[in-house]
């Protein structure tokens, strides 16, 4: 049951959360993080639903922020509820109108859970530089989804890559995990030197761009990009002296896995739901260093300079230098 608060303030929202929690008879908070979902009127229903289902694994306070800058005077309306969808978390959907829409962090800040991590998620359109965004700046983890920008997805990804800051990740990277796991398993099984690679996917697939960058940064070989009708990624080939390692997934569900001297084997490789992707993101909240290396590689391949072209974190080896590459990047990633 949601409580509606009109013309309200963050402190009234906080009080409503507390009242609801006490009314439910369980004032204790087992929540481990605050998830700020920056969304809009059209998408918030699905986005909040996804966030709530993820809250079963990562009990969270979910703050759905809907900005309506063009609607009249500055005002704040909110729906507050606890539980639902089997989660024990709390949900606030806040609509920020007028001038307030440009100061959304003033609503978010007082509603963050004490101490625990803050994650910002832009299910669709994200700021070009999430770490500089006022809400993004409050978060230690910033999750974008370039694939949501359709025909400009690859361009959006490149913008994100150039503006990378530690703590940023993109769901098009998350989507790659099963592919990367299988490729790594293939090289466990057949530890040969890779001579070249090929990634086939539909057009404007940011995951394919990241996969090429990852393979290039790890293997230092040419990785060709070819196109198919999808869905998503359809095949990856790594060539060795003894034959090809290939994962081929024509229909988006079942893949074929081939390594030299071994029979061809079916392997389930379903495209995952957003909730699964988000749950994976929330499992670890420190900066993803491998993603950092990968977006740096992406910048190099595209001849761009990354904004934060400095060593990433203290604990990490300095990532590969990202001096601007003059090398042309057409559809083939060039090696050294």
């Amino acid at each position: 049951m949601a409580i509606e608060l009109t013309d309200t303030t963050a402190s009234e929202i906080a009080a409503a959360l507390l009242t609801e929690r006490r009314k439910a008879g369980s004032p204790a908070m087992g929540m481990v993080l605050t998830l700020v979902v920056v969304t809009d009127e059209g998408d918030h229903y699905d986005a909040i639903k996804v966030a709530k289902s993820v809250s079963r694994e990562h009990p969270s306070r979910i703050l759905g922020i809907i900005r309506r800058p063009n609607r009249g005077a500055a005002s704040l309306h909110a729906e507050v509820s606890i539980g639902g969808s089997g989660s024990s978390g709390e949900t606030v959907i806040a609509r920020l109108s007028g001038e307030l829409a440009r100061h959304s962090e003033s609503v978010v800040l007082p509603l963050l859970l004490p101490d625990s991590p803050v994650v910002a998620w832009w299910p669709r359109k994200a700021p070009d530089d999430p770490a500089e965004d006022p809400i993004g700046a409050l978060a230690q983890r910033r999750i974008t989804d370039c694939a949501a920008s359709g025909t400009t997805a690859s361009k959006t990804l490149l913008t994100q890559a150039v503006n990378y800051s530690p703590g940023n990740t993109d769901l098009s990277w998350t989507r790659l995990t099963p592919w990367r796991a299988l490729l790594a398993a293939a090289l466990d099984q057949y530890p040969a030197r890779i001579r070249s690679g090929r990634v086939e996917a539909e057009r404007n697939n940011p995951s394919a761009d990241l996969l090429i960058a990852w393979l290039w940064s790890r293997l230092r070989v040419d990785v060709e990009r070819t196109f198919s009708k999808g869905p998503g990624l359809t095949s990856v080939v790594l060539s060795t002296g003894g034959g090809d390692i290939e994962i081929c997934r024509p229909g988006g569900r079942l893949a074929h896995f081939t390594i030299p001297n071994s029979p061809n084997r079916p392997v389930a490789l379903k495209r995952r739901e957003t909730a699964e992707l988000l749950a994976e993101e929330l499992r670890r909240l420190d900066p993803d260093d491998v993603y950092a290396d990968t977006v740096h590689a992406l910048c190099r391949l595209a001849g761009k300079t990354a904004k934060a072209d400095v060593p990433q974190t203290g604990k990490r080896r300095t990532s590969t230098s990202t001096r601007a590459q003059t090398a042309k990047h057409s559809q083939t990633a060039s090696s050294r």
Partner: protein
Amino acid sequence: MTLTAPAEVLLNPLRDPQDRRLPRIAGPCGMVIFGVTGDLSRKKVMPAIYDLANRGLLPPGFGLVGFARRDWADQDFTQIVHDSVKQHSRTPFREEVWQQMASGFRFVPGDFADDVAFEQLRETIQELDRERGTGGNHAFYLAIPPSFFPDVVSQLKEHGLSQPDTGSWRRVVVEKPFGHDLESARKLNAIISEVFPPESVFRIDHYLGKETVQNILALRFANQLFEPVWNSNYVDHVQITMAEDIGIGSRAGYYDGIGAARDVIQNHLVQLMALIAMEEPVSFDAHSLRVEKQKVLRSLRTPSRLDLHTSRGQYTAGWAGGQKVPGYLQEEDIPRSSTTETFAAIRLDIDTRRWAGVPFYLRTGKRLGRRVTEVAVMFKRAPHLPFDAAETEELGQNALVIRVQPDEGVTVRFGAKVPGTAMEIRDVNMDFAYGGTFVESSPEAYERLVLDVLLGDPPLFPQLEEVELSWQMLDPIIDYWADHGKPDPYESGTWGPRSAVEMLARDGRVWRRP
């Protein structure tokens, strides 16, 4: 057949220790299950295998061979797995995952004495290596009564199934009971170790696969808060309980003559106790963990007066949870004169500096008040209370309770002021419950353990030494009971016999109601 790997062996450039998203997928391998028609296979093992496949953790080409005395073809076996998966798996059924798995199913019909069948098993495995690329790596899961272990294990040896080619592995998985006393445990082990080296033997104690049990290590060794009070200066005693509300059901054949102490204390409770009591291991690898667990088990002391500090019981007819239930002696296939205990409680002491004078009370039973497994660390009372006796009348002992199942989590119990009174202090709970059990990523114990078998990762499996040490502790108690008449009756649905209450009362303590 092994894979002809290329000559130059390289470090896998796609792996990076920093890349913590990449799951560990088992290498090429297969599993052979003996006893596929049994409860354990259908309810636990096969569903766990499916869940692993669903989470992308099984290698492509994984082979699953069923062995049973049934006149089945591969398709019939596939149907059995299908039913078991549909009914018992944790994760949703997905057609593409099923297809990936099902193409690797094979069935071998036969008895354990049947040489032809084991020959066929050998051919089947070779065929899997050829057609599915299982690489000669196979685990044999003995989901059968332990009395058949010798037959199966010697057949495996006879037919060259236990011996891996270079670069591949063969492993054997056995379930509790690991014997019924020290001698039988040694015998059983002698049989297995004649065929498989110790590092290839995986003993499953599924409690160790539970998230909450692994969380004990995190709680103790990742925090500064608990370890300083985790000793005899602050801890009064520890209670470890595993209670079931059900009776023995259809397990009469297995249970009678075994009883609660052998069935539960010897393995699950002693393992829990070791994790609670052990010193900090130098790392979490198998060897370091074992060293610390063994130290605890070696310093266990059983009570000198077994009549005063142990208790056993047998449930009688009564009402449990709103149902009228029969007593143990009225259960089907149980002899009317059975002296098997369905409840057991014992006091154990640990002779170390950390734990001297802190008794550990272990209890387990069937048809108790409710189904619950928990560890309660009970703290001493504050040495001085600057309050009137009347003000602290309702204040009990501080406690830290690790709830293992069903409602997994941690509770801390401490005193707080009752609102509105002048100064009245009463116990309150602070609760922690992490995540839901319905989440895909929170694996069931068997998933974790089956995956660890396939990865060859041994930390969660008790070694022979631990098994022997816990029998050494338990044998005198069971012998004593055997010589001293019948277990004390307790009414179904209650928390055990009077003797259990008295056992703690003698020490000036009471059992928690969990």
